[in-house]
């Protein structure tokens, strides 16, 4: 709201500069980047999903789940690992030079193409996940229908399954678009100017809040368009949600050549998106381990843990309260309130940070006029918690909602008829049933806050540092070797939610075996 209202105020000098020089360029860059990443991440995600669901080749099951792993790597980490790999004088150049091979063909790491590649490698899992879902459920069934009508497996995939999966693929690509528009850390590493970096610069370099607000308004407009499209695609795929995967999956038997190609494609994506960047981080971090594991490093860890734990409790309690209210009272008001509350996930962190800062600034000003000390709220943990709550409430709410659906009204009655009501029922029935959902929600919020960059960077109290902020500071000064250790710490903790995700989608071999 404060962003919309900013269009009345004015702040001439900086504003004119930004509108003339910064805005057109960063707007174009944002759009070009989003288009490129959507195309590439969409292509990678759909191809991998099709290969791992519908084709048979060696190591298919292994790839089916390891291809989710890049989800654990935040964009800004992948970005500087890539710079280290492909930079002139970086690891790959040196290695090729060592074997006297030509290294000129390697990707120019500061090009538009490199940024698109890095973001696509980080974001393709969204498309992969949704496309896999689609192929596994309605895809398999439609292939059987196609076969019964005389089509081959291959024909029925292209004629039936792929067109039917369109809403899922579109949903995945729109999520990628949302993340790309909101991305701040990755483009910052490449010094590529987009709307998010423009907001940051307007605020921190030019100290023009009104300019920052105006850019945020434009970004918000783009995000709203994408969100509306995403909701639309979600409605389209409602009709088939909740069906179980077909039991005996029919897969295309590939010939030797095609098998090799499939294997090559899957492993090169896995190498590029996971093995190489992680290897680069280890290569940097291990030799300096003793130097880097200082008191300072642990102070970043404790800052991160403190912040993420606090946010975890705040956000998850809010989500639990919201879930119970939504269960008790089913009405239009409550439903729309829940929808509104969980919409915050679509807001880019940079937009959210200044959107929350402005009203807080007014409140502070008012407090000051009442004789209280100035800056009481600005840059306090309270502001951060508010911003995190808006951004991550949906993350915490979704697993809770799924668990609460299992508690049918007659379960409450069954408990009452056995003499257990009120608080005892909450303790013995509701909380145990919600338990797994609460744990999932806590893990997701903890890790998301830990990885989160723009909100933390822009609203943190002075001198308060987290691992993510540390990585950002070191990479913006080009000190990649030293950024590797905090980045690794983030990636390692980031595996937790990926593990939960893999377990819930049941692609992991261990889950299959236990059934």
């Amino acid at each position, binding site marked *: 709201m404060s962003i919309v209202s900013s269009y009345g105020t004015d702040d001439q000098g900086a504003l004119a500069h930004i509108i003339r020089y910064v805005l057109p360029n960063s707007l174009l860059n944002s759009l070009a980047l989003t288009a490129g990443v959507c195309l590439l991440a969409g292509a990678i995600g759909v191809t991998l999903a099709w290969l791992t669901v519908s084709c048979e080749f060696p190591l298919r099951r292994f790839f089916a789940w390891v291809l989710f792993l890049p989800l654990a790597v935040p964009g800004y980490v992948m970005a500087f690992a890539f710079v280290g790999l492909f930079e002139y004088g970086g690891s790959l150049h040196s290695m090729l030079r060592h074997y006297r091979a030509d290294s000129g063909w390697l990707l120019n790491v500061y090009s538009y193409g490199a940024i698109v590649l890095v973001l696509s490698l980080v974001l393709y899992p969204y498309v992969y996940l949704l496309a896999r879902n689609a192929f596994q459920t309605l895809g398999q069934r439609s292939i059987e229908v196609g076969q019964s009508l005389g089509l081959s497996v291959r024909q029925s995939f292209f004629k039936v399954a792929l067109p039917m999966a369109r809403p899922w693929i579109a949903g995945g690509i729109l999520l990628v678009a949302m993340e790309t528009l909101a991305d701040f850390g990755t483009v910052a590493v490449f010094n590529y100017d987009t709307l998010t970096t423009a907001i940051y610069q307007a605020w921190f370099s030019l100290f023009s809040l009104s300019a920052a607000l105006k850019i945020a308004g434009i970004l918000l407009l783009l995000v709203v368009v994408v969100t509306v499209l995403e909701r639309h695609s979600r409605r389209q795929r409602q009709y088939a949600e909740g069906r179980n995967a077909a039991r005996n999956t029919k897969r295309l038997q590939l010939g030797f050549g095609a098998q090799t190609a499939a294997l090559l494609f899957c492993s090169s994506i896995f190498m590029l998106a996971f093995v190489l960047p992680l290897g680069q981080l280890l290569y940097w971090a291990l030799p300096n381990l003793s130097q880097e594991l200082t008191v300072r490093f642990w102070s970043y860890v404790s800052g991160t843990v403190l912040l993420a734990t606090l946010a975890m409790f705040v956000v998850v309690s809010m989500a639990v309260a919201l879930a119970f209210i939504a269960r008790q009272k089913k009405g239009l008001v409550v439903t729309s309130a829940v929808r509104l509350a969980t919409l915050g996930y679509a807001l880019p962190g940079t937009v959210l940070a200044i959107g929350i800062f402005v009203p807080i600034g007014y409140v502070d000003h008012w407090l000051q006029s009442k004789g209280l000390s100035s800056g009481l709220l600005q840059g306090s943990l309270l502001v951060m918690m508010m911003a995190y709550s808006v951004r991550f409430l949906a993350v915490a709410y979704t697993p809770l909602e799924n668990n609460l659906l299992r508690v*049918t009204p007659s379960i409450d009655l069954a408990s009452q*008829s056995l*003499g257990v009501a009120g608080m005892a029922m909450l303790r013995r029935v509701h909380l145990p049933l919600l338990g797994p959902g609460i744990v999932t929600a806590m893990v997701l919020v903890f890790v998301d806050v830990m990885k989160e960059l723009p909100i933390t960077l822009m609203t943190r109290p002075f001198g308060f540092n987290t691992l993510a902020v540390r990585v950002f500071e070191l990479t913006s000064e080009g000190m990649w070797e030293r950024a590797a250790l905090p980045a690794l710490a983030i990636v390692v903790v980031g595996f937790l939610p990926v593990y939960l995700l893999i377990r819930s989608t049941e692609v992991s071999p261990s889950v299959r075996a236990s059934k």
Partner: protein
Amino acid sequence: MIHSEHVLASKAKNYFSVEQLSVGYESRILLADVNFHLSKGSIGCLLGPSGCGKSTLLRAIAGFEQSLQGRIYLDDNWLNRPGRTVAAEHRNIGMVFQDYSLFPHLSALENVRFGLYGLSRPNAIAKARHWLGQVGLANKEKAMPHELSGGEQQRVALARALAPEPELVLLDEPFSSLDLEFREKLSREVRELFKASNTTALMVTHDQHEAFAMADYIGVINNNRLEQWDDAYHVYHQPVNQSVADFVGQGVFFERGNCR
């Protein structure tokens, strides 16, 4: 309401009785002026088409729903009187739900143990085991509800309702989601179990077969009222009016002198 003589004769030792009860909403009364009673250890059944209000009546007896008027009396206690009702959790009435409503996070044994919080842990476990054995599931203690078949879930639900030894057990369409063949077998078993443990029970169903297989006393609900309440033999052979005869006539009467 027409009672035959032997029902009236036993009124003195009524254990559970419903008097002038009305259920529904202020705007739409589902059932008006319902009167019937059961002696200790007998099984009653309310029979009627879907949507006639029989489930609402059962829920009012359980205490999940307010009755509009009338009184319910169980083992020397008024459960609801004008101005005062006993909360569902204090009525000591067990209930078996149509969808079984087992607690999905608890094993079969833990489900049965749920209502035995007044006992020490070993005693509660021993008692839950006993009841699980009574319904023939001694070997499924550790199974989670989703691992059990529909019939097994039904038996666990039954054991859970019986374990706290309630003064009355209510069953809401207890066999409706089972196969026809299995339904008859289970209803016979449940009847034997109730008789062996001297349990007083009231069930509702729209299935005449079930009613006659299970119940000592049957009430036929039609046209927003309880048209006849009588023992199974009299409901079948001497229906009070044409609509009762039509509804019951589709059923089959089991002779079961040897069952008591």
